[in-house]
């Protein structure tokens, strides 16, 4: 498989701020690749570097082998779905979708036919004559998607496209986006701050932090073998133990993480387990599970997540009471110092 997008030691600095700091990565053709990170981590800047809205301060960006640094956006074979859709308010939906074809000089009937096809693809066939302002957020999102796909880009860039949608709609769009990507077979580069979204859709995820990449891996690897404390904490929830705490609890030099769902009340586990006494601070009922906040060694608050159906009886329900936590030794995820 060929490489769709390649970053080689790319940096983007604004005065003293290093928005993107010496990043190298490769995105394979046909891959669903997510850039995940908190706001200000450099993920959106990286996407904009691929689109051409930003120029790198240093380094090289190749799109299908061609050097892209210095090329304006209109000369790149990538298209973007914008965070707030960026639909042209003075055009109807059909003309929005046909915009790229119009610029290429495709005759009106032909470009409208192809735009109609794209609207069918995103299930908005009836909406061509409407103004974007007459559509709901989810529909605008689909128009933006159709518009970006009309030019049949080899790489589609998506900048937090689902951020403004409500939860149900977002989940539905995640499924549709993923199946659309499989159907079209083009490379998706997807920027999000929502780890659940990145995990559920992506072939691989790059976790960004402070302008750098902490780890690039498949979702399962990110979750089960996080390279750093940041990844462990950002991808799923994690209890990170470092320094003297790691030494006291497990006799380790190295920091480690334990997922909340791997922790149990001490009575439920046997074998090679680590046990920690603590005090129950709070219980949060979350439906299928409950989260228990437990203070251990008088300083660290540890989260434990228990399924509700069979463990409500076993767990102490009195806030402020003593509780001993335990986890299997193999549940500890070693992190880079």
């Amino acid at each position, binding site marked *: 498989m060929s490489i769709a997008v390649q970053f080689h030691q790319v940096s983007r600095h604004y005065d003293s701020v290093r928005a993107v700091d010496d990043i190298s990565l490769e995105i394979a053709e046909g891959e669903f690749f997510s850039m995940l990170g908190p706001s200000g981590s450099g993920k959106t800047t990286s996407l904009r570097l691929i*689109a*051409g*809205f930003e120029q790198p301060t240093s380094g090289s960006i190749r799109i299908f082998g061609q050097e892209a640094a210095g090329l*304006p*956006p*209109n000369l790149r074979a*990538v*298209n*973007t779905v*914008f965070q*707030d859709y*960026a*639909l*042209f*308010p*003075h055009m109807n939906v059909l003309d929005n979708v046909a*915009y*790229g074809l*119009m*610029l*290429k000089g495709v005759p009106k009937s032909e470009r409208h036919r192809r735009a109609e096809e794209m609207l069918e693809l995103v299930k908005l066939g009836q909406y061509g004559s409407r103004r974007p302002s007459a559509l709901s957020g989810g529909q605008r999102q689909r128009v933006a998607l159709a*518009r*970006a796909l009309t*030019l049949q880009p080899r790489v589609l860039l998506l900048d937090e496209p689902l951020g403004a949608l409500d939860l149900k709609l977002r989940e539905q769009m995640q499924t549709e986006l993923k199946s659309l990507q499989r159907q079209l077979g083009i490379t998706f580069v997807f920027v999000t701050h929502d780890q659940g979204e990145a995990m559920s859709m992506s072939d691989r995820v790059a976790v960004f932090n402070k302008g750098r990449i902490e780890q690039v891996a498949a979702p399962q690897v990110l979750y089960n073998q996080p390279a750093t404390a940041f990844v462990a904490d950002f991808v799923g929830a994690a209890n990170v133990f470092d320094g003297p705490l790691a030494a006291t609890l497990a006799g380790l030099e190295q920091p480690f993480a334990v997922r909340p769902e791997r922790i149990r009340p001490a009575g439920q586990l046997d074998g090679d387990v680590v046990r920690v006494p603590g005090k129950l601070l709070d219980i949060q009922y979350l439906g299928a599970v409950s989260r228990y906040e437990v203070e251990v060694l008088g300083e660290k608050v540890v989260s434990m997540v228990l399924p509700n159906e069979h463990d409500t009886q076993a767990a102490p329900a009195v806030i402020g009471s003593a509780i001993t936590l335990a986890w299997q030794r193999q549940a500890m995820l070693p992190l880079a110092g």
Partner: protein
Amino acid sequence: MMTASLPVTPAAPALGLWQRLGVALYRRPGLQLGLLLGLPLLWFLVVYIGSLATLLAQSFFTFDDFTMEVSRELTLANYRQLLQPANFDVVLRTLLMASAVSLASAVLAFPLAYYMVRYARGWKKGFFYVAVMLPMWASYIVKVYAWTVLLAKDGMVYWAYQHLGLGGVMDWLMTLPLLGGNSLTTSHLGRFAVFTYIWLPFMILPVQAALERVPANLLQASSDLGANGAQTFRHVILPLAFPGVVAGSIFTFSLTLGDYIIPQIIGPSGLFIGSMVYTMQGSIGNMPLAAAFTVVPVVIIALYLTGARKLGAFDAL
């Protein structure tokens, strides 16, 4: 467990006079709106709409050429008079000048406003705002007279032309029928330059406000879909900022249509609508004809706006 308690606020505190007044207004939104709008609305109805209606009525009154008196007999004679060649020339001359000034203002204002919105940051932005507004703080009459000095035969503009070796070009320009004259001060070109100078800020500000409302990501979306700078300008920026150009051109257009000072001081002889109104109501006392002349710009602007609307200039609003 905690035993300390927070002080409890009584459910219904005793209200003071002002608070009770506030509650009364809160419960009657209509009264609130009435108090807010009453005075300005009255002012608007009487002073703006009222005077406009009076003007319209005046234009149908009869003026007696012999007694020089106005009677309330309704007639269309004033409007017929507008169509007489001498008067129609005045309308046409004013209209041409107003169109040329509006067009030139738009062409000059657009890049400047674009720079102010998209590129100028920090002190530069402030500088440009002040620089655009500053000439409006100075007296209009002073500025116009200053231009007579600048445009005079031995003035700065001629001096600059001579030193650039363009004296011949200037002489040739002055021989052209629609532009020329004895010198810049008495030419249509000079008058056009002064009009454009005076009204330019009225174009820059609305265009700048319109451009300010064009989200930057639309420009990025356009270029992302393959547009070069010119295509983005034509298909995105211009349509979205066009209401601003229309708003600005209403200012430049109507201000030129109504002006009677610049045509008196700069340019060749020949009256403008403004100077015609001034003469008619002042020395002659023919109020009805003056009113009829005044209705002309109102009608022209109304037609212009209707046309602009039909062309979709306000679709983006």
